[in-house]
């Protein structure tokens, strides 16, 4: 059986009629007891399971997923990777994620198609430009490369931009190492690598209740029976409060629908990622050729994985304003993911009042870019009981102490 991907194994299997490939991961059935259980088969959960095995030698680990792996927000986001944050805590954390992404295809022996094509934020007025200067300075102080460009340079770098838009493009901030990766490959790559290290990946297994004794978690009651473990980690994004409530834990998280859509596939026409906060535009082109467009957050709490028409219209209007040539493109698909919004738009990675129960949530609209670091830090916390140095500021305690890391306003996160 062929397990690893290489030029040689591809050639051999090509000559062999592709009959020798082993399934990428084992579809496991639950055992009665594990050293650790991870709830949630998205990128963060799968990365957690992988790093528990890889970094901490914990291989008797179960990853349980209600549906199928990569079927939640990991399969619904716009796949942008960047680390242009403002505060040192978040900047260092997201930069660590970006660096792990840079080596991830090699690490996992799975091509995640990470394309560092740059990521531009556009400024359309004097105040927008002031914010970009401030962002660039903050990034550089945090050791992250950033380039400021004037309007002429932006137009020279990005062909097709409207030369006389209603809101002129005065300049842009480029993070050259930003870009996009293939979302499914990130989930499947982590699943395959974790499974190879002995992790049981259990799909179609819903958590029904927590087994709790003397303030400690003892295991989970699931749709596939009781599974015992003293250590449980949770990475379930928009459903965090629903699941944590079963463990008697309240979280400062609100769930909203965030939608995205793609156009019909066309030949390569946009070789970078563009974010224009002022016009509400977030656009890139996938390797398949589809324009991938992210819209704003819906107005109200929602668990319905569908977006709202006015927000779709607003996003489309911004795209057409910046790229008039795209006005006749047809949309192919539209969808929404349920995102976990917290007050300061900074993630939560930490312990809870229930001993042995650890959480990874609060990614809001930007969890994909953090997957390797989110998994790395949750695995560290679950294995050692202590917070990873990169994530010490991300605990739930910050909501009691008031030490919020307010990226919501600092980075101009629009939602």
């Amino acid at each position: 059986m062929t397990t690893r991907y290489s030029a040689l194994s591809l050639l051999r299997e090509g000559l062999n009629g592709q009959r020798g490939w082993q399934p990428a991961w084992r579809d496991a059935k639950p055992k009665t007891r594990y050293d650790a259980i991870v709830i949630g088969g998205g990128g963060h959960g799968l990365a957690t399971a992988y790093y528990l095995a890889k970094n901490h030698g914990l291989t008797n680990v179960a990853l349980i997923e209600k549906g199928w792996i990569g079927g939640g927000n990991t399969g619904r986001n716009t796949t942008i990777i960047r680390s242009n944050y403002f505060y040192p805590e978040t900047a260092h954390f997201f930069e660590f994620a970006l660096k792990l992404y840079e080596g991830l295809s090699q690490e996992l022996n799975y091509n995640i198609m990470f394309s560092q094509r740059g990521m531009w934020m556009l400024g359309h007025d004097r105040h927008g430009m002031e914010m970009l200067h401030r962002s660039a300075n903050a990034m550089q102080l945090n050791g992250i490369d950033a380039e400021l460009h004037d309007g002429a340079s932006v137009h020279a770098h990005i062909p097709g931009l409207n030369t006389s838009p209603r809101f002129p493009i005065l300049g842009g901030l480029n993070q050259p190492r930003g870009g996009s990766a293939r979302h499914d490959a990130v989930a499947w790559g982590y699943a395959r690598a974790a499974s190879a290290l002995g992790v049981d990946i259990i799909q179609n297994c819903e958590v029904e209740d927590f087994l709790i004794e003397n303030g400690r978690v003892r295991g989970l009651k699931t749709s596939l029976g009781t599974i015992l473990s003293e250590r449980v980690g949770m990475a379930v994004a928009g459903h965090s409060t629903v699941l944590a409530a079963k463990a008697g834990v309240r979280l400062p998280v609100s769930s909203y629908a965030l939608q995205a859509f793609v156009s019909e596939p066309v030949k390569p026409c946009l070789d970078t990622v563009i974010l224009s906060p002022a016009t509400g535009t977030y656009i890139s082109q996938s390797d398949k050729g589809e324009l991938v467009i992210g819209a704003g957050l819906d107005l109200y709490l929602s668990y319905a994985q569908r977006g709202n028409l006015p927000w779709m219209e607003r996003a489309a209007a911004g795209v057409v304003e910046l790229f008039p040539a795209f006005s006749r493109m047809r949309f192919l698909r539209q969808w929404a993911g349920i995102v976990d919004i917290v007050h300061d738009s900074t993630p939560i990675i930490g312990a809870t009042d229930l001993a042995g129960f650890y959480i990874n949530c609060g990614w809001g609209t930007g969890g994909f870019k953090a997957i390797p670091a989110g998994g790395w830090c949750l695995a560290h916390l679950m294995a050692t009981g202590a917070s990873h140095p990169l994530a010490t500021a991300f605990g739930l305690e910050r909501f009691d102490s008031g030490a919020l890391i307010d990226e919501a306003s600092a980075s101009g996160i629009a939602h």
Partner: protein
Amino acid sequence: MLLIECPYCGPRAELEFRYGGQAHIERPGPYDTVTEREWSDYLFYRTNPKGEHRERWLHAAGCRRWFNVARDTASHRIVAVYPMGTTYTMEKSQ
């Protein structure tokens, strides 16, 4: 898109409204007895049910008045609209 029955103007499109989040939050007090946990709860912790949620809405592009809505967060169905300062219980809708 939601069709929201403003109690003062009648049914209007969602675009005319602003969302005000969870309804019926009471500020804890008296101030010198409030613990950090209670204060944090008041500031940051919100109910986030998958199901019926009671929330505030403002008819921003209409009468500019606030009112309460009971809405299902999974189906988006509006169960009841009721004035500020009043409460709503499940029994009323049955």
